[in-house]
């Protein structure tokens, strides 16, 4: 499994006694000089804001009234967030989006990877063609999909109706359809990503395993379940991990495509956060929500990294 460099061991550090009397700065000073600016910037623009958010989440501060008195309100912002039925609706919408989009992407991405691994002629050209959507700006993708979803002249509706669709339907205006519209666009955009990872997984499987299976006359089914799937599993988990984190944070695509609507059926946690923080200016409340989201994402990634290690040790 040398493809997974993240999990592999560091090359051994050899200390060279002959270099200790060098001219110029010592290696230790140089190391700090090289790493220092990066660490300082990250502290200033990530850790400091994070701590500030934590502090704000315990206050009733409002960013549109910076000069008003700010009071310490203890954990009441958190209580309000967790007792707010609207938040649970947002969480449900987020969960629907996460589960549906990632399940679709894994299925489609794995199928495409298995097919591309047959190395038919021109397969590398077509895999590049498939990869294009994932590099685009999600906000702009959201904008032009709005055009495709137009009920009268949208190309998406025209194609669905050409294939025997129901005639008139409004993907972005219907409370039943709109959650699926964001799943569809996200799947269009990110299936290539899963495909790319799983294809790397398939290509990292040592051929001798398949040769052994052929000598044992194992069926294609057995070979898939006993060799292909277990060997690709770390890559599936990595894809799952990256996609979950990205989609939990996802803001730009949905902000442009539906802006949380109609009503709030596609109001994901991140859209809710924007509304509370920058439209209603409930800074303290929004900060509490931000911390809850951050902790969930962080916890999720820690679990996934653990699992990845476990799978790798087998």
């Amino acid at each position, binding site marked *: 499994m040398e493809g997974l460099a993240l999990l592999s061991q560091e090359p051994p550090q050899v200390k060279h006694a002959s270099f200790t009397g060098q001219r110029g700065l010592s290696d230790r000073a140089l190391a700090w000089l090289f790493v220092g600016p990066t660490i300082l910037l990250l502290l200033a623009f990530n850790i400091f804001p994070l701590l500030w958010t934590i502090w704000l989440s315990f206050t009733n501060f409002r960013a549109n009234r910076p000069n008003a008195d700010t009071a310490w309100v203890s954990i009441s912002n958190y209580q309000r967030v967790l007792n707010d039925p609207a938040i649970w609706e947002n969480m449900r919408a987020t969960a629907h989006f996460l589960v549906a989009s990632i399940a679709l992407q894994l299925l489609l991405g794995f199928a495409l990877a298995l097919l591309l691994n047959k190395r038919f002629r021109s397969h590398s050209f077509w895999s590049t063609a498939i990869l294009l959507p994932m590099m685009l700006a999600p906000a702009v993708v959201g904008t032009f999909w709005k*055009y495709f979803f137009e009920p009268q002249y949208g190309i998406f509706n025209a194609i669905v109706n050409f294939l025997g669709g129901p005639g008139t339907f409004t993907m972005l205006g219907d409370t039943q359809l709109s959650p699926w519209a964001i799943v569809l666009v996200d799947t269009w955009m990110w299936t290539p990503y899963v495909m790319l990872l799983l294809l790397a997984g398939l290509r990292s499987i040592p051929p001798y395993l398949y040769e052994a299976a052929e000598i044992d006359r194992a069926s294609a089914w057995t070979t898939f379940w006993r060799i292909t799937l277990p060997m690709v599993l770390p890559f599936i988990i990595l894809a799952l991990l990256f996609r979950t984190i990205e989609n939990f944070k996802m803001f730009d695509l949905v902000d442009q495509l539906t802006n949380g609507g109609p009503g709030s059926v596609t109001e994901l946690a991140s859209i809710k956060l924007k509304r509370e923080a920058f439209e209603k200016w409930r800074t303290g409340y929004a900060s509490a929500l931000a911390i809850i989201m951050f902790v969930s994402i962080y916890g999720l990634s820690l679990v996934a990294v653990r699992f990845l290690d476990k799978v790798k040790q087998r």
Partner: protein
Amino acid sequence: MRSIPHSPLEPSARSKWFAGIVVIGYALVSLIPLAWIFMTSFRTPQDAIAYPPKVVAEQSLVGYVNLFTTRSRVSAEELAALPPPATWYEGLVREQQMILAGPSRFIDRYSNSLLIGFGSTLLSVVLGTLAAYAFSRFRVPGKDDLLFFILSTRMMPPIAVAIPIYLMFRHVGLNDTHFGLILLYTVVNLSLSVWLLKGFMDEIPREYEEAAMVDGYTRWQAFLKVVLPQAATGIATTSIFCLIFAWNEYAFALLLTSGSAQTSPPFIPTIIGEGGLDWPAMAAGTTLFLLPVLLFTVLLRKHLLRGVTFGAIRK
């Protein structure tokens, strides 16, 4: 070895055909949206909202003209009283019962995107190269924890730190400035830049620098004259990834800029002018905005996997 059906090693001709047809089918369907946006950019506003949608339509540059200009509507009598249009694009404006009012803000927003994209890429790649070299070659205390910390900054939802950053920027006057966004995108890209470049640096044999240092180079000279040229591919790859991120970023740009420093992503949705129906102009803006990214993606295809997994998967 005897050929066995369904072998993953040597697929039969029939399964190759099947795989090819399904994959090409998927690719073609998934490219319809991009093709459609491109085609829409060369249509007239009337054709863009035709029902049912037209596959073949009259070709027109009116989308691009509307993208780059602002116009005002005039009555037929006023239009008739005007002298003939001086330029071809003025003619296209007149055909819409309008007169040219001036340039639009598209070029400003596009240059903002370029300036902020290149500025932040330069900074994050320079800082990332230094840090990656140190992590790759030196004994840095707590190295694994530091590297994990750097990666973890990427997990933070932008909206979660946007509140204090908004307050910070407002306090020091960085709201709606190019420098503010450059600084912010530099920081967001640092995790990617350090992780990717560390992977590339690890692949450069340290014997080269050691030989140079035996020859009397200092560590710094060896880094500049031996390591950097070897890392050129890695640095170029990392730069393109940083550039694409900054080019595509929307959340911070939306919240922290409103006018002079606004980049393209928050601007493009606002193009859809009068009556909310100027789809060709929106499509033209989208086409010009996406083209560089599409070109870079094709150039990068060998390194895409590495870039999108922070160097975790290399092959």
